[in-house]
């Protein structure tokens, strides 16, 4: 298990993705899966960066673990910001035409569809989002 702490700021996105991609490469993750998992992490991280700390800045902790037997990646994103369950949002209607499509809600939807499992809990003042994917 490796973990790293980043400021909850979109300026840190490149570092966040660099960290994740390095760990995934070590796990021999296929390139396409690296991209998809990176997109999922970006969506979650950017949400936290935008909304978790309305009065200023804070940190985001990202944990990475890889089960070699199951070939399953586990990612956990935690922050001490305002309690917020990103999974509570209704899915966007993806059948609408360009004119009717709304802008919001796509990020977490992509995360849910990309990863095998996504779960949320609020514990000891922390928002904790855990996601797994078999690679």
């Amino acid at each position, binding site marked *: 298990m490796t973990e790293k702490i980043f400021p909850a700021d*979109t300026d840190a996105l490149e570092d966040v993705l660099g960290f994740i991609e390095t760990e995934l490469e070590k796990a021999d993750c296929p390139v396409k899966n690296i*991209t998809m998992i990176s997109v999922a992490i970006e969506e979650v991280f950017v949400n936290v960066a935008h909304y978790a700390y309305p009065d200023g800045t804070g940190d985001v902790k990202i944990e990475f673990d890889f089960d070699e037997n199951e070939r399953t990646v586990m990612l956990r994103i935690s922050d001490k910001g305002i309690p917020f369950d990103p999974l509570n949002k209704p899915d*966007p209607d993806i059948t609408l035409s360009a004119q009717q499509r709304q*802008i919001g809600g796509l990020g977490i*939807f992509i995360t849910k569809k990309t990863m095998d499992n996504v779960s949320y809990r609020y514990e000891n003042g922390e928002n904790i989002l855990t996601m797994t994917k078999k690679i």
Partner: protein
Amino acid sequence: MNINVEKNNESVTLKLEGRMDTTTAPMLEKEINALPEDTKDLILDMNALEYVSSAGLRVLLAAQKKMNELGTMKLIGVCDAVMEVFEMTGFADILVIE
């Protein structure tokens, strides 16, 4: 992300290179907003684009809506990972992808 702009009469080709994420998507937005008013056809060459997140989808949606009024827009050279994001979000049906 790098964007190469090629103008051919009323047709503009934007060649995207690298990754379109939260921090780089505004670059495409800027190019779309700067398109000459007589632009009839917009081609997004994605052969060298390896990544798109929802920030990129937002800009592509705005571009599609704009070009629906002015003429046409199409995407070429879309890689597997980007195509998967388009398909899971229904964008494969909204965008013209060759």
